[in-house]
């Protein structure tokens, strides 16, 4: 590998030997593409004319405090995921791969991969935990409409981590022809670095937009953290600035129990899915089953750069329960006329708490996705 793939002591490339050449090939393709103006031109063209960048920065008119929403919910596909699947899709073309595989939790990344598969002409297979297939039927059908094959995964807890296991197993046999389009800034090197670079556009745009609207930097930037791609994308350009960075983890039914996905708050150091990071596990290293109302945050590890940002103290991480997220989801709908994803509602819930404590702070919230996929679940939960 050309880069270390480490963030402090976290990260690395813990995969079976057979996959190392595929990750080396990906790293080379990524680094070469970063130097290639033609790649940047094609990607930026797609981001603007196909996906709809830049996305707006919206100042909330009715919610308390000074909350600014970075509207990734308005991106084509309905979430920030589209940014990086376009980047990885173009890389897969560059490497001459004919097939894409991906894992998905809520289905957002699966939908995004199906989009790029249809657009750029790949055979696309999406692994999805059988439990998630059942709770996200609409997204399953969306993927199928765009030509992807959705494979329900029956092993383990039948959620996101099991889908990643299955995608890695597929890739171990198929890497010659197939690119594994990992959906978040986690996993083995080079994924955490590459996905951050493709998502950096979120914070880059938001920084320029808030400076233009407000005349200064925000005081705080807040994003939800499952694997951590939208948060690292929002944070990346603010890391050198005096801006507080807060990641919000799913506290599920409460941090005192076991039904949550708060990896950085309740996990311990371990190695899962290719990276050394924080992991929710028992005392023997067996991975825990997690819980969150939002399938996209329901993951027992976290991107290694977040583990490093936590340890270095540059970012802080807090929890938000299912109930708090649901209340924020409702508040945003009622006050601003925006239906956001349950994932994004976690970030907003913390922003609302902060707005109450410090009404003068300018709070930037990464609104990572739209809520259409969650409307059905919301109807049942809010009834």
């Amino acid at each position, binding site marked *: 590998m050309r880069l270390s793939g480490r963030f402090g002591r976290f990260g690395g490339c*813990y995969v079976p030997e057979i*996959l190392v050449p595929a990750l080396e090939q990906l790293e080379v393709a990524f680094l070469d593409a970063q130097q290639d103006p033609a790649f940047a031109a094609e990607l930026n063209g797609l981001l603007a004319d196909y996906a709809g960048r830049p996305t707006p920065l919206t100042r909330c008119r009715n919610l308390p405090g000074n909350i600014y929403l970075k509207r990734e919910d308005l991106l084509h596909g309905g979430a920030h995921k589209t940014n990086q699947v376009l980047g990885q899709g173009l890389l897969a073309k560059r490497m001459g791969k004919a097939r894409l595989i991906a894992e998905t939790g809520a289905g957002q990344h699966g939908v995004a991969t199906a989009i790029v598969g249809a657009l750029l002409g790949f055979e696309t297979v999406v692994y999805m935990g059988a439990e998630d297939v059942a709770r996200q039927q609409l997204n399953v059908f969306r993927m199928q409409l765009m030509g992807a094959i959705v494979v329900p995964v029956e092993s383990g807890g039948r959620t996101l981590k099991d889908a990643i296991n299955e995608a890695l197993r597929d890739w*171990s*046999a*198929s*890497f010659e022809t197939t690119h594994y389009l990992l959906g978040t800034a986690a996993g083995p090197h080079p994924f955490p670095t590459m996905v951050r670079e493709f998502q950096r556009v979120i914070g880059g745009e938001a920084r320029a937009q808030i400076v233009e609207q407000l005349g200064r930097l925000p005081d705080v930037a807040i994003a939800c953290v499952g694997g951590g791609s939208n948060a690292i994308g929002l944070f990346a350009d603010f890391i050198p600035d005096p801006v507080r960075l807060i990641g919000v983890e799913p506290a599920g039914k409460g941090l005192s129990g076991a039904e949550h996905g708060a990896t950085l708050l309740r996990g311990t150091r371990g*190695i899962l899915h290719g990276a050394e990071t924080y992991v929710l596990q028992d005392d*023997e*290293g067996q991975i825990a089953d997690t819980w969150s109302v939002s399938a996209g945050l329901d993951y027992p590890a976290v991107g290694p750069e977040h583990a490093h940002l936590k340890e270095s103290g540059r970012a802080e991480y807090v929890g938000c329960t299912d109930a708090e997220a649901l209340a924020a989801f409702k508040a945003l709908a009622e006050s601003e006329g925006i239906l956001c994803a349950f994932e994004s509602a976690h970030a907003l819930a913390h922003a609302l708490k902060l707005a109450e404590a410090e009404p003068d702070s300018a709070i930037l919230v990464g609104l990572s996705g739209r809520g259409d996929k969650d409307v059905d679940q919301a109807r049942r939960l809010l009834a």
Partner: protein
Amino acid sequence: MSRYFTMFDRLDGAAAFGAFLMLGDPDLKTSARLLDSLVEGGADMIEVGIPFSDPVADGPVIQAAAQRALAAGVRVGDCFDLIAAFRGRHPDVPVGILTYANIVVARTGFMRDAAEAGADSLLIADVPALEADPFVRDMEQAGIEPVLIAAANTPEPTLRHIATLSKAYTYCVSRAGITGTHAGGQFDAALVERLRAADAPPPVFGFGISAPEHVRAALSAGARGVICGSAIVDLAQRGGDVARFVRSLKAATGNESAPQ
């Protein structure tokens, strides 16, 4: 002198037959009995899995075995106890542990405990040569022999690194993909030759060995041994005669007369 060295020496150029089982599958008592069946069938070396909840290098058969062991409440300490008891009954048979990185790093003194139980080697399925150095240092300090994986697509510099780090044997994967009984192994003679040129420990093929013809194909590619895993685990789970099955595969190595 290490047990692996003594074994290969005793075989005097003939191939070793390695047999794999998941420790604690389906429970501790059955698992101990099955380990003995492997020796009874003539296995020259025993490979044992310590179960992990998320085994990405394993196919459905070994995944299910790990799940059964975990569902039975088997803990890492129980696995070391099984190894220690086996060692008491079979002082000379080499025993290698196969597991995953998170199991190793979660337990302070994993290597020392493995050595004290009488294990000879350790292969960590998700630690490639690129990440292996600190693990290998710990193993050597504890007196455990590192085993690394080499594949047909492993580039030359990595292969030389693997040759330097591996001690007991070199685990060669016969094909891309995960463990499992579906065949299709290529038993790459070129890989064996490259390992020999790099002065690596004896090449032993694993993945997809489930019938005598696979054993013969691997040996004709120049392997010094084979490891059969999923086929044995599957048979044991269905209540089949494990010793007899091992004997049939071992016969294909042509070293039936070796003492047990």
